[in-house]
C-alpha cells in the first residue's frame, strides 16, 4: 500500500478491483454446473444466509411497517386521504423499501459472515486444502453461497413486505381507527402483481446476487491475516450498501 494522496493510483486500483470482481463473477457462473454436485452445500447455505436472517428481517419489517403507518397517516391526513394508507404503504414496501432495506440488513447479517467465513478459510489454508484434495473451492465454497443469496433474498423480501403491511395495518386500523375494509380495498384496487410485486422481487434477486458476489469476492481475495479479514468484512458492508443503492436507482429508472 502506497501512502494516500495518489488519486490516480487509487482510481486505477479501484477499476482493477471492479475488473477482478467481474472476472470472479464469471468464474462463479462457470462453476455453477460443478456446484450442482454439491447441492447439499447449497441447501445448507440457504439455511445459513436465509433462515438465520429471518429474525432480524421479521423484526425490522414489522417496525418499518409500523413507522410507515404512523408517518404516512399523518401526511395523508393533511390531504384528507387516510383511506389510501394501505395503498401507499404497500407500494412503498413493494417498490423500494422491501427490496432495499432487506438488502441492507442482509449485507450486514449474511454478507459479513460470508466474508469472514471464507476469509478465515483462506487464512487457515482450508481453501488450499480443498484444492489439494482435488475439490474446486469455487464450486464447493463460493458458488453455493452465491446461489443461496440469490434464492434467499427474494424470499426474505417477501417476508419483510408481509410483516411491513401487517405492521401498518396494526397501526392504521387497530390503533388509529381506519376502516379495515377501506384499508384493504384501496390497496387491492391499486397494487398490481406484475408492476409492483414481481418487479420488486427482481430487484431483490439482483441485490442478492451483488451482495453475495461482493461478500465472497472480499473473503476469497483477502490477505490471509486476521487484520485482512477484518478489513474485508468492513469493505463488504460498505461496498454492498453503495452498490445496492446505486443499482436500485438504475433498476427503478429502467424497470419500473
Amino acid at each position, binding site marked *: 500500500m502506497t501512502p494516500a494522496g495518489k488519486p490516480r493510483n487509487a482510481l486505477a486500483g479501484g477499476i482493477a478491483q471492479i475488473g477482478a470482481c467481474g472476472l470472479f463473477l464469471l468464474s462463479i457462473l462457470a462453476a455453477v454446473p460443478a456446484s450442482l454436485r454439491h447441492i447439499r452445500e447449497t441447501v*445448507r447455505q440457504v439455511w445459513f444466509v436465509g433462515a438465520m436472517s429471518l429474525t432480524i428481517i421479521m423484526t425490522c419489517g414489522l417496525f418499518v411497517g409500523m413507522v410507515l403507518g404512523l408517518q404516512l397517516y399523518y401526511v395523508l391526513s393533511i390531504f384528507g386521504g387516510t383511506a389510501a394508507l394501505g395503498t401507499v404503504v404497500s407500494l412503498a414496501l413493494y417498490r423500494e423499501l422491501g427490496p432495499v432495506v432487506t438488502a441492507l440488513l442482509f449485507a450486514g447479517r449474511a454478507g459479513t459472515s460470508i466474508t469472514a467465513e471464507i476469509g478465515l478459510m483462506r487464512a487457515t489454508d482450508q481453501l488450499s486444502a480443498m484444492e489439494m484434495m482435488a475439490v474446486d473451492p469455487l464450486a464447493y465454497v463460493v458458488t453455493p453461497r452465491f446461489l443461496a443469496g440469490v434464492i434467499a433474498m427474494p424470499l426474505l423480501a417477501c417476508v419483510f413486505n408481509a410483516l411491513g403491511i401487517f405492521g401498518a395495518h396494526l397501526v392504521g386500523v387497530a390503533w388509529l381507527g381506519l376502516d379495515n*375494509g377501506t384499508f384493504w*380495498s384501496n390497496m387491492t*384496487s391499486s397494487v398490481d402483481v406484475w408492476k409492483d410485486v414481481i418487479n420488486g422481487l427482481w430487484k431483490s434477486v439482483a441485490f442478492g446476487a451483488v451482495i453475495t458476489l461482493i461478500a465472497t469476492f472480499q473473503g476469497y481475495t483477502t490477505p490471509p491475516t486476521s487484520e485482512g479479514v477484518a478489513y474485508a468484512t468492513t469493505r463488504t458492508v460498505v461496498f454492498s450498501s453503495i452498490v445496492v443503492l446505486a443499482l436500485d436507482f438504475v433498476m427503478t429508472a429502467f424497470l419500473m
Partner: protein
Amino acid sequence: MSQKHSYQFGTGLFILLGFAALAWLATQTTSIANYRQGDSYTLNARFSNVGQLKLGAPVKIAGVRIGSVRTIEVDPAKLDAKVQLSIATRYAELPDDSAAAIFTSGLLGDQYVAIQPGGSPDALKDGDEFVLTQSSVQLEDLIGKFLAAGGPEKPAEPATPAATPTP
C-alpha cells in the same frame, strides 16, 4: 448425519415460509384479490359512455368495495355500453331504485362504478338492471359545455372531476 437432515428440514421450512408470504402478498394485497371473490350475483347497467372503465374495476357503495366489473360490451341494438357487475352476495339488499354512476377515484385515478342507494323497499335481484345510470364524464364534454356557457361562472359538473381524455 442427523445434523444434515435438520439443515434440509429447516431450509425447506424457510423456503415454504417465503413462498407463503409471496402467495399471500400476491393474492390478498393486489388487484388479483378482486377477481377472487366469494359468492356473488350479477346486476346490469347501461351507460352511454363508460370512459376508462376497465374489467375488474371496483364497484363501491359509500366508498367501500362491494363487487367488480365483470364484462363491458356494446349492445348492438341500442348502441350503448352494457356493463355486467358482479356483487358480493352479502350485499343482496340493494334497493331497486338505486343508481349506478361511473366516477374517478381522486383527480387522475382509475374509474369505478359507484352505486347510490335509493329508498325503495324492494331489492334488486340477480340479473336485474339499474334504471338510473350516470355515464363517465368526458373532459372534452366538460370543456365544450364550459365554452358554450361562455365563462367560468357556471362549471357544468362540479361534483365529478374530469376523467383523462378518451383516445
